[in-house]
């Protein structure tokens, strides 16, 4: 039996080797939506990770830059420790005046500074306290007087009036006070309005014949982008920027002849009459009056009205144009990190970041007598796409608050506009943004 058993095993093993049975077509239809759905969170996770990375780097840079700063603590500590001595002096160069007393002040906080400070403990100073000095004093105190708490805050009125009873201290060197020196009296926030013409094109890593044919018939159109951006200056070099932009991208699809007046011949009740293949997906006509026919090689148009069924010239349809114009509009939410490379009369910044682009409009039309003749829309476009951007910004300061900006920016779309095509085509755009920004 064993031998017979092995024999029957071989019959089946050899007989079924390489045997194939075509599965029903609906199996793939059930598989694809599942794997597509599972991939989507991965794209979102990648986007979230990128944004988190940008924010983390910004925060880390901010923290590091703060930790490295020798704050004005030493000055203040010295002030408190030596309050009883007639004169306080540190290694700080620029003298300013300051009215204060040490521990005694704490016991009588209700009294004015001038009243509390005994004359003998203070070296008389004939210099009038200037308002910038007071500003510095206030900032210094708020930053670093923790060791001296509770500390009496001298009323400004009495401070200004106490011409005689003042200490003489020196202002810290500016290089140790980047907060004062770099921000130059302006705020950390700024708002900018920018706009740019944009050149849109795409990279194609797909070598298939149809893909090459489609690419060859498509030409980019100059479109535009613009919006408002807010930025926050993290430190002297880094700032983070976000905002709201609107951009429009477009291309010409050549070799498609459009005719008008088809409606009277159209008897079907289908959702669309013509489907035009493009690298960004299929264009479906929604204008019942339009008839399309491809002039170039390849099957670019899917329709039941093929040339052997319907001849637009015999039917005397009105020729319109041989080019379609395909446009997409996006609202963009960018997160951008800016690094100031040069801080001179014209600042130069390196700019990099990511942007979420929400599709708000897509249209396909052709031109007739300078006007638009609607054709249809592109189907299956991703409602959200993610792009990365890299650029170099030049900033010319017109005043402390106002500046002119010029930013050549390259943008690469991380996912194709249309996933249905399984495309290896990744769009990119280039624009030179210009505008003004206001610091506050």
């Amino acid at each position, binding site marked *: *039996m064993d031998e*017979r*058993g092995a*024999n*029957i*095993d071989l*019959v*089946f*093993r050899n*007989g*079924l080797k*390489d*045997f*194939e*049975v*075509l*599965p*029903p077509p*609906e*199996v*793939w239809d*059930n*598989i*694809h939506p*599942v*794997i*597509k759905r*599972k*991939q989507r969170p*991965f*794209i979102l996770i990648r986007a979230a990770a990128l944004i988190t990375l940008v924010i983390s780097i910004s925060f880390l840079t901010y923290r590091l830059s703060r930790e490295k700063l020798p704050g004005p603590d030493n000055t203040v500590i010295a002030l408190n420790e030596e309050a009883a001595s007639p004169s306080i002096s540190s290694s700080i160069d620029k003298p300013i005046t300051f009215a204060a007393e040490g521990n005694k002040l704490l016991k009588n906080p209700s009294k004015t500074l001038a009243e509390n400070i005994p004359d003998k403990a203070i070296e008389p100073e004939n210099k009038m306290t200037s308002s910038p000095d007071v500003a510095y004093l206030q900032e210094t105190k708020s930053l670093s007087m923790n060791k001296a708490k509770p500390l009496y805050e001298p009323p400004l009125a009495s401070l200004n009036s106490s011409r005689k009873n003042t200490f003489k201290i020196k202002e810290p060197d500016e290089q140790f006070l980047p907060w004062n020196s770099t921000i130059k009296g302006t705020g950390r926030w700024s708002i900018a309005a920018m706009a740019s013409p944009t050149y849109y094109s795409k990279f194609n890593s797909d070598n298939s014949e149809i893909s090459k044919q489609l690419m060859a018939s498509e030409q980019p159109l100059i479109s535009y982008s613009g919006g408002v951006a807010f930025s926050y200056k993290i430190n002297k070099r880094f700032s983070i920027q976000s905002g709201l932009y609107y951009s429009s991208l477009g291309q010409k699809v050549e070799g498609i002849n459009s005719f008008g007046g088809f409606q009277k011949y159209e008897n079907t009740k289908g959702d669309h009459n013509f489907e035009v293949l493009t690298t960004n997906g299929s264009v479906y006509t929604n204008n019942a009056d339009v008839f399309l026919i491809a002039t170039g090689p390849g099957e670019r148009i899917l329709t039941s009205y093929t040339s052997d069924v319907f001849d637009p010239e015999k039917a005397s349809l009105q020729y319109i144009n041989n080019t379609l114009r395909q446009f997409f509009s996006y609202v963009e939410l960018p997160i951008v990190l800016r690094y100031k490379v040069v801080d001179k009369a014209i600042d130069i910044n390196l700019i990099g970041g990511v942007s979420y682009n929400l599709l708000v409009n897509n249209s396909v039309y052709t031109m007739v007598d300078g006007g638009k003749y609607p054709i249809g829309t592109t189907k299956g476009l991703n409602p959200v796409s993610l792009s990365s951007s890299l650029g170099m910004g030049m900033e010319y300061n017109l005043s402390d608050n106002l500046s002119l900006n010029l930013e050549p920016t390259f943008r690469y779309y991380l996912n194709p506009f249309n*996933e*249905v*095509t*399984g*495309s*290896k085509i990744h769009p990119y755009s280039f624009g030179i943004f210009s505008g003004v920004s206001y610091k506050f």
Partner: protein
Amino acid sequence: MSEIEKIIKGCLAGNRRDQELLYRRHAAKLYAVCLQYSGNNEEARDILQEGFIKIFENLNHYKHEGSFEGWMRRITVNTALEKFRRRHSLYRVDDIDLIPEPDADPDNQDYAGLEAADLLEIIRELPPKYKVVFNLYAIEGYSHKEIGKMVNISEGTSKSNLFRARVILQRRVGSYTGIKKRIANG
């Protein structure tokens, strides 16, 4: 980079065209495997569907060592076994007495003339437990010890099921061969 590696890379990047290409190239062979393990076409479709979803989900774990087709086949077989284990309690294998008597002598059989479709048909008529053991042992080449672990049965039961499966198959093959000969002779 070989073509299959390019397709795998495309699938990992979420490229729909490569995913479909991978499916189209291998679905027919794997569907035949599914039919071997299933009792009906609906079950075979489910196995193929679940198997391919697992293949796509686990593509990043494929180490490009050994045959990719073999790797996909193992996933498909494992999916079939999962289904089998889930339905294990529903299957009865004591229906061997219901098997019709052979109309040919199993000791003197001529297996020639049987096509793959006939063999598949014969194998699918086996009771589920015999079918699984026979497929794993005779077609996939697993040992009884391995089969025992895979199907949650003892090694002895695996041997016994294989023996019974072979008996049934020999009878059925005899029947098919006899019928075919009679048809051929008019």
